[in-house]
């Protein structure tokens, strides 16, 4: 489909639903959302105020759905949204918004600004104003099945590697398994230790699990770029795989947006409830811990802290699970300032890490994370999102901070009792 301004504006009109109308009409212009956004706090530039990023959408709302706005439009007194303006807004809607949801959380009138950004991105994408990096990722996700171009042979190669590493067979397409394990492209490409950790944990717990050759990828570029049709296709692929294999539970991996897409947006996207349960891997691990099926030994000796992935903790509500799991294996654990649901984003969520031109701003925004980590004195940083992990590593490397970043699942697996 050819992207045009006309189609983009049409989509913007369509996406303005009752919540968005009420959000715009109830905004009291208090500016609290600015203080909650790392792109504003670290640059001091007012254009990064979250509600201001929505200006094109607000104007469409005003011109189409308010009495005074419609009169003004009729009389030619209001300025129409143009291609030039949307292009100017691209860095505000994409480069400087990780959809972390901190602004939504602090809004005193309860406006879900992330929801509005998601909807604005729909119009931006259809009008041809999405960043090239995200467009390419979304195209690959639909055509190949993975935003990073990962194909099944690559997954099988990693399975072989992990089998050799762990001595545990990695199951594929096992009908009737209890768990369907999904991975993000990042884990397939950069972090084979995640799959190795899953293999060890499931073996110890005595649980049946499988990968699916038709649905191994959890990442949802449709959510990031803001195209519901693509998001729907990607969710449906997982649903089809899970139902074909008749699994009870689908495990979302250490990937923030994958969890949001599958757990919270998925059923609405496909228009029906799932026939299976969706859990994040940390929810599964905490459940195994609760059942006494996660037996660990020893503790991490270094002082460590946890980076709360926004989509998992703030947006997803998986707040206590990582802390209970860390208590199993860490006796020198410290919280950062503003921990849990108020944590500061790594700066690379919402597709920002896929936008090359956004890198300088992302590194500038990382200063807040740097300050948080310095204050803890932690020697190891644990997180539960592969994208956060790389963004954190890059930020730490940029600011010459030698703090290893590790995944929570692999940290737990490293402490499983011997013989398991």
């Amino acid at each position, binding site marked *: 489909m050819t992207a045009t301004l006309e189609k983009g504006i049409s989509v913007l009109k369509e996406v303005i639903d009752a919540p968005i109308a009420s959000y715009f009409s109830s905004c009291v212009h208090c500016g609290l959302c600015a203080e909650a956004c790392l792109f504003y706090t670290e640059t001091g530039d007012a254009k990064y105020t979250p509600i201001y990023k929505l200006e094109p959408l607000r104007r469409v709302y005003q011109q189409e759905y308010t009495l005074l706005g419609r009169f003004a439009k009729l009389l030619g007194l209001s300025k129409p949204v143009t291609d030039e303006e949307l292009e100017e807004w691209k860095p505000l809607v994409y480069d400087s918004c990780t959809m972390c949801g901190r602004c939504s959380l602090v809004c005193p009138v309860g406006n879900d600004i992330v929801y509005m950004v998601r909807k604005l991105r729909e119009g931006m994408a259809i009008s041809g104003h999405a960043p090239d*990096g*995200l467009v*390419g*990722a979304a195209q*690959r996700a639909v055509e190949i099945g993975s*935003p*990073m*171009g*990962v194909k099944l*042979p*690559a997954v*099988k*190669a*990693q399975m*072989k*590697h992990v089998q*050799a*590493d762990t*001595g545990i067979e990695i199951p594929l397409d096992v009908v009737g398994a209890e768990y369907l394990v999904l991975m*993000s*492209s*990042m884990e397939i*490409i*950069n972090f*084979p230790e995640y799959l190795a950790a899953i293999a060890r944990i499931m073996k110890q717990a005595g649980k049946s699990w499988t990968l699916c050759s038709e649905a191994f990828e959890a*990442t949802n*570029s449709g959510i*990031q770029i803001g195209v519901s049709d693509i998001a729907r296709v990607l969710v449906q692929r997982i649903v089809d795989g899970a139902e074909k294999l008749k699994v009870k539970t689908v495990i979302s991996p250490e990937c923030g947006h994958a969890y949001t897409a599958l757990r919270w947006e998925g059923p609405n996207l496909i228009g029906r409830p799932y026939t299976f349960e969706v859990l994040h891997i940390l929810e599964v691990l905490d459940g195994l811990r609760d059942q006494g099926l996660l037996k660990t030994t020893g503790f991490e*000796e270094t002082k460590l802290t946890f980076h709360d992935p926004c989509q998992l903790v703030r947006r997803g509500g998986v707040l206590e699970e990582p802390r209970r799991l860390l208590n199993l294996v860490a006796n020198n654990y410290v919280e950062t300032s503003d921990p849990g649901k108020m944590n500061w984003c790594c700066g*690379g969520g919402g*597709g920002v*890490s*896929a936008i090359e031109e956004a890198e300088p701003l992302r590194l500038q925004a990382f200063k807040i994370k740097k300050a948080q980590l310095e204050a803890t004195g932690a020697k190891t940083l644990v997180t539960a999102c*592969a*994208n956060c992990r*790389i*963004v954190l*590593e*890059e930020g730490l*490397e940029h600011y010459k901070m*030698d703090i290893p970043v590790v995944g929570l699942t692999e940290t737990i697996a*490293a402490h499983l009792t011997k013989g398991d």
Partner: protein
Amino acid sequence: MNISNDSEFRAALSSLSGATRRLVAARLAANVLTLCPDPRVQGAIDSAKRTNISDAELAAAYQSAKAASVDSYTQCGHECNWSDQASHFVAEAGVACVQPEQPGTNAAWDAAMQARMARTCETIATGHGTDNTEAAAQYRILAEFLKA
């Protein structure tokens, strides 16, 4: 000493001292070095081969290899180039060679696994299937090292 599988390989590595493991790690990483053009990784592996290296030199080599590793990650949403990714895992093997030894870790085993991932990425990049003969090469490298 004949090493023909991972159990024997791992057992042989476990019996070595930390300093000797580093020497073995360097040889295992060097076996895949052709997959990585980054001179920082070459430098780290060369450093790890030295028996008289100081702690300060080791720390500098670690910083350098770590930077090479971080620089070569495939970022979220970017199309994966498997040749570049092979280079990343060589850098990771280089990091394993010179990183400070932690309790419960084995630099040589870590370097071996990263080197195998590098070779796996190479096989994906070249489209020659996923057969990976790096493990067998590593058994030979260790056996020859122990024999010398």
